[in-house]
C-alpha cells in the first residue's frame, strides 16, 4: 500500500471512529431512554440526511472525546439552508469543554455571516467542571454563546429542540431562542437540579416537577411546544421553519392556497349573547387554510391563542382571545404570551391578525400583586411597535384596555373592522350601569323596580355603543359579514404587502417588562 493510501485509510478510520460517538454503554443508555443518537437526529432533520460538518476533529487526540461532544453542521431543511449545533450525550453526557464551546460559537458566527436560521439540538449535562478555566469565564467561553444568541435574536430564527437536560447555565440556550420544542419525559430545564435544591435550600422535589417538559410548557412558559417523542419534535421544527424567511431581510415563502376546514360557519360559531363562551379555535379554522395552524404555547395561558397560519397560502401570525378559557380575559401570562408572539412575527416580516373577543384585563388583588399593569403594558408596547401589516377584527367584544391590546383603532392597525355582533366600549353594559348609577340603584328599595331600572339603563347603554354608531364616527373602518371575513382578509393582507414604516427613531425604547 502506498503511503498516500495509508494516510487516506487512517483518515477514513478516524472519521468513522468519531462518527460513532461515545462508548457502547452510553448508546445502550440512549436506547433505554427512548433517545436517538445525535447523528441519527441530524439525519432525520436534514433533507436527504446530508450535512456539512465543521470541527469534527475537535479534541481528537483524546480518545474519549469524539468531536468534543457536539456536532456543528450546515445543511438544508425543506430546501432552506440552516446551521445546527447538536450535543452528543454519549460523550461525557454532552457536557461542554473548551472545544465544545468554541465549536458552538463558530457555528453561531457562521449562521450570522450567511444569514440563515440556527437550530440548537440540546442534550447536555452542562459545563465540564474539570475544564472550567478554559470554558467558563473567558472571552470565548460559554458566556459568549449567550451573548451571540442575544445578538442574533431577531436577525435569524433561532430554534431549540430540547431532547434531554439543559442544566444551570445551559438552560439559557433555550431561553434565548425564538421557539423551544421539548420532548415529554426526557427534556428538562433547571438552574439547580433537585439534588442541589435539596442540599442548598432543603426542597425535596422530582425532576419532572422541578423542570420537566410538561411543567415548562404549561406553567413557566419556558417551553413552547410539547412533543411526545424525538421524531415528532424534529418534524415540528421543520414545520415551524416553513413559516419563516431565512433572516429579517427576507419575507416568508408563499405556498398554494387551500380552502378552510369545511362545515364551519362563523355566524353559527359565535353566540350573540356576550357572556356565553364559544370555542375560538373553530373561528380560526373557518378563516385559515386547512391544516395550516402551527400553534405556539398551546398549553400555556390558554385564554389567548397565538399561532402561525396561512391564509390563501400567505403566512400570518394570529393572536386571538379564547372565550372558552377564563372568559378570554387577559392575565399576566397571556399578556407575556401575546407580547412575545407579536415580537416574533414582527421580527421576521409576518403580518399580524388580531381576533378580539375580550372582556378586558383581569382585575383583583391576585393579579395586581402579580403586576398585571406592567405585563399588560408589555403586550401593548409590543403590539404598538410592530410595523408589519396589522389587521384587527372585533369578533364579539373588546372592552377596556382589551381593545388596546388587540390592536384597536388608536394603535395604527392597517384596518380595524367589526363583525355585526361586535361591541366596543370602556366596559360591558352591566358593569357600566353599575358604575354610573350605583347611588341611584342603591336608593331604589323595590327589587322589581330596581331590576327594571337597570334593564332600561343597560338598553340605553347598548344603543350608545351600537356598532353602527362607531362606524358612523369612523372609529372602525368597516362592518364585515362573517361569511365574507376570509375573503376580506385575503384581499386586505395582499393590499398591505408593500407597507413599510419606521415606528420611531431612537436607540431603543425603555421596555416595560
Amino acid at each position: 500500500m502506498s503511503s498516500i493510501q495509508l494516510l487516506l485509510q487512517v483518515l477514513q478510520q478516524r472519521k468513522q471512529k468519531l462518527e460513532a460517538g461515545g462508548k457502547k454503554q452510553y448508546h445502550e443508555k440512549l436506547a433505554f431512554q427512548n433517545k436517538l443518537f445525535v447523528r441519527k437526529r441530524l439525519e432525520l432533520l436534514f433533507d436527504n440526511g446530508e450535512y456539512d460538518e465543521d470541527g469534527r476533529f475537535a479534541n481528537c487526540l483524546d480518545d474519549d472525546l469524539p468531536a468534543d461532544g457536539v456536532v456543528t453542521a450546515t445543511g438544508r431543511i425543506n430546501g432552506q439552508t440552516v446551521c445546527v449545533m447538536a450535543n452528543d450525550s454519549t460523550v461525557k453526557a454532552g457536557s461542554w469543554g473548551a472545544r465544545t464551546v468554541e465549536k458552538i460559537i463558530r457555528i453561531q458566527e457562521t449562521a450570522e455571516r450567511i444569514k440563515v436560521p440556527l437550530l440548537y439540538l440540546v442534550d447536555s449535562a452542562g459545563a465540564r467542571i474539570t475544564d472550567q478555566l478554559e470554558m467558563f469565564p473567558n472571552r470565548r467561553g460559554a458566556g459568549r454563546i449567550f451573548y451571540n444568541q442575544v445578538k442574533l435574536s431577531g436577525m435569524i430564527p433561532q430554534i431549540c429542540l430540547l431532547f434531554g437536560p439543559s442544566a444551570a447555565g445551559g438552560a439559557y440556550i433555550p431561553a434565548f431562542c425564538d421557539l423551544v420544542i421539548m420532548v415529554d419525559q426526557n427534556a428538562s430545564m433547571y438552574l439547580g437540579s433537585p439534588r442541589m435544591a435539596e442540599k442548598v435550600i432543603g426542597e425535596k422535589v422530582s425532576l419532572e416537577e422541578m423542570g420537566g417538559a410538561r411543567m415548562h410548557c404549561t406553567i413557566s412558559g419556558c417551553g413552547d411546544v410539547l412533543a411526545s417523542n424525538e421524531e415528532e419534535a424534529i418534524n415540528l421544527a421543520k414545520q415551524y421553519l416553513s413559516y419563516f424567511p431565512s433572516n429579517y431581510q427576507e419575507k416568508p415563502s408563499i405556498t398554494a392556497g387551500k380552502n378552510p376546514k369545511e362545515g364551519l360557519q362563523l355566524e353559527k360559531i359565535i353566540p350573540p349573547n356576550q357572556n356565553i363562551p364559544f370555542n375560538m379555535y373553530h373561528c380560526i379554522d373557518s378563516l385559515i387554510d386547512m391544516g395550516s395552524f402551527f400553534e405556539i404555547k398551546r398549553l400555556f395561558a390558554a385564554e389567548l391563542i397565538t399561532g402561525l397560519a396561512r391564509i390563501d397560502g400567505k403566512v400570518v401570525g394570529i393572536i386571538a382571545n379564547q372565550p372558552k378559557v377564563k372568559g378570554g380575559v387577559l392575565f399576566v401570562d397571556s399578556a407575556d404570551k401575546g407580547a412575545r408572539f407579536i415580537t416574533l412575527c414582527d421580527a421576521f416580516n409576518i403580518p399580524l391578525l388580531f381576533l378580539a373577543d375580550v372582556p378586558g384585563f383581569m382585575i383583583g388583588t391576585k393579579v395586581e400583586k402579580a403586576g398585571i399593569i406592567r405585563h399588560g403594558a408589555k403586550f401593548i408596547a409590543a403590539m404598538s411597535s410592530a410595523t408589519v401589516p396589522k389587521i384587527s377584527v372585533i369578533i364579539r367584544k373588546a372592552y377596556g384596555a382589551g381593545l388596546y391590546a388587540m390592536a384597536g383603532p388608536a394603535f395604527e392597525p392597517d384596518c380595524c373592522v367589526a363583525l355585526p355582533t361586535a361591541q366596543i366600549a370602556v366596559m360591558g353594559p352591566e358593569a357600566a350601569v353599575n358604575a354610573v348609577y350605583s347611588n341611584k340603584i342603591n336608593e331604589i328599595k323595590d327589587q322589581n323596580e330596581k331590576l327594571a331600572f337597570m334593564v332600561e339603563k343597560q338598553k340605553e347603554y347598548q344603543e350608545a355603543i351600537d356598532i353602527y354608531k362607531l362606524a358612523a364616527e369612523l372609529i372602525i373602518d368597516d362592518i364585515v359579514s362573517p361569511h365574507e371575513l376570509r375573503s376580506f382578509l385575503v384581499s386586505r393582507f395582499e393590499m398591505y404587502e408593500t407597507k413599510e414604516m419606521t415606528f420611531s427613531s431612537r436607540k431603543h425604547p425603555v421596555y416595560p417588562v
Partner: protein
Amino acid sequence: MKEVKAIMAGVVLMIPVSQGEQVSVGQEVIILESMKMAIPIESSEKGEVSEIRVAVGDFVNEGDVLMVLK
C-alpha cells in the same frame, strides 16, 4: 383526594353537580361569574364529589379549593 380549584377570581354562579355524584374528565363542575362572563370550571380528574366547599354567591380567589373529589 383531588381538588378542583378556581382558575380565576369570581363569584360562584352555579354548581351543576352535587355531593356523591360521579364526575368525568372535562365535565363542568362549577360555573363562576367573573368579568361579566360565565367561566366554566372543568374537572381535570375522574371521581366522586366528596365535598363542595363553596356556595352560590360566594367570592372565590384564584387557586381557592372549590370542591374535593375522591
